[in-house]
């Protein structure tokens, strides 16, 4: 004899997965005791589950990951107004100085790119000189990840004249290009220590 209306698909699945509370489970069990159709559904659900869960994880063939192209555009760090102000303030100051110099020295006025590079370099120096900008830089470029520990990597780089420091579990090299840092670390095997360059 059937007890109550038939449970729906979701209740039957929840029953098999043991996701029902005690009261609901009791209702479904009472129904199953008198309903061959639902009992049959339960058997199928269990049989299907057993077949699927017995299926092994398949091993991927070797060399699945081919040569990776360059990222189209690296992700930027999230915007933090406080840090932006800290970074932009010296930029504004230096830009002002450069503007004055350009105005008073027309002979160098057409070197726009050089001027911009000078601003960037001086900005880096300004941040460096301040010594307080300890948050990771906006446009840090990953050199590669090398074998650690991180303090050894820092020492190696410092011994070669780089301004390297540990920061947030990685090694940050300031005032250097990724290429120059890469050359300095070319003998070091790959590993978990991320090395970034901040030009």
């Amino acid at each position, binding site marked *: 004899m059937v007890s109550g209306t038939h449970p729906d698909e979701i209740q039957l699945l929840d029953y098999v997965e043991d996701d029902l509370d005690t009261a609901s489970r009791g209702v479904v069990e009472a129904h199953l005791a008198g309903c061959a159709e639902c009992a049959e559904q339960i058997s199928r659900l269990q049989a*299907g589950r057993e077949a699927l869960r017995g299926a092994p994880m398949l091993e991927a063939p070797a060399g699945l990951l081919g040569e990776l192209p360059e990222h189209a555009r690296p992700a930027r760090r999230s915007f933090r107004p406080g840090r932006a102000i800290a970074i932009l303030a010296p930029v504004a100051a230096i830009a002002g100085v450069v503007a004055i110099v350009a105005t008073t020295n027309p002979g160098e006025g057409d070197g726009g790119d050089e001027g911009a590079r000078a601003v960037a370099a001086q900005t880096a120096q300004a941040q460096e000189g301040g010594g307080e900008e300890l948050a990771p830089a906006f446009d840090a470029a990953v050199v590669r990840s090398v074998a650690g520990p991180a303090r050894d990597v820092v020492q190696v780089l410092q011994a070669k004249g780089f301004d390297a420091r540990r920061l947030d579990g990685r090694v940050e090299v300031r005032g250097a290009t990724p290429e120059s840092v890469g050359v300095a670390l070319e003998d070091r095997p790959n590993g978990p220590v991320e090395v970034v360059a901040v030009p």
Partner: protein
Amino acid sequence: MRDPDGDLVRRAQRGDRWAFEQLVERHQHRVYTLAARTLGSPEDAADAAQECFLRAWLGLPRFRGGALFSTWLYRICLNASHDQRSKRRESKPLEEAPEPADPRDAFVASELSGGLQRALSELDDSYREAVVLYDVLGCSYAEIAELTGVAEGTVKSRIFRGRSELAKLLGTPSEGTES
């Protein structure tokens, strides 16, 4: 929910290939299994998995972490598998594959030519994806809902129907007793 892949994902987003390789190492068997159970062919699965990781690498700068990295990756894998299937339909059918020399390949080939895979291949795509994600890969209802873009109730319904049909196709002991 904290993503166990979060640190590696952030590093890979900044262009760290080593970090991405670690992610591939972590997920490659599950991605391959998903593709293989979806497509039923080792060769097509390898192509789809490779395409999946390439797309993931290229798309990483746009991944915002709203979902788990694994959920995002499985979605890419399913898309790549669908594309691979369309490509296969447009080209000639897969020729009889030679006997694999590597025992691991032979195991995969044997798994994908067995009764379970034949039964899976008979299922509606949405049922097959649901049961493979839930029962084989162990994804939660919420994850499957997120990556398939349907409600959790629909996911449960698909699992119910997928398992039931699979049991019928596999010929469970109680087959034939249905009224």
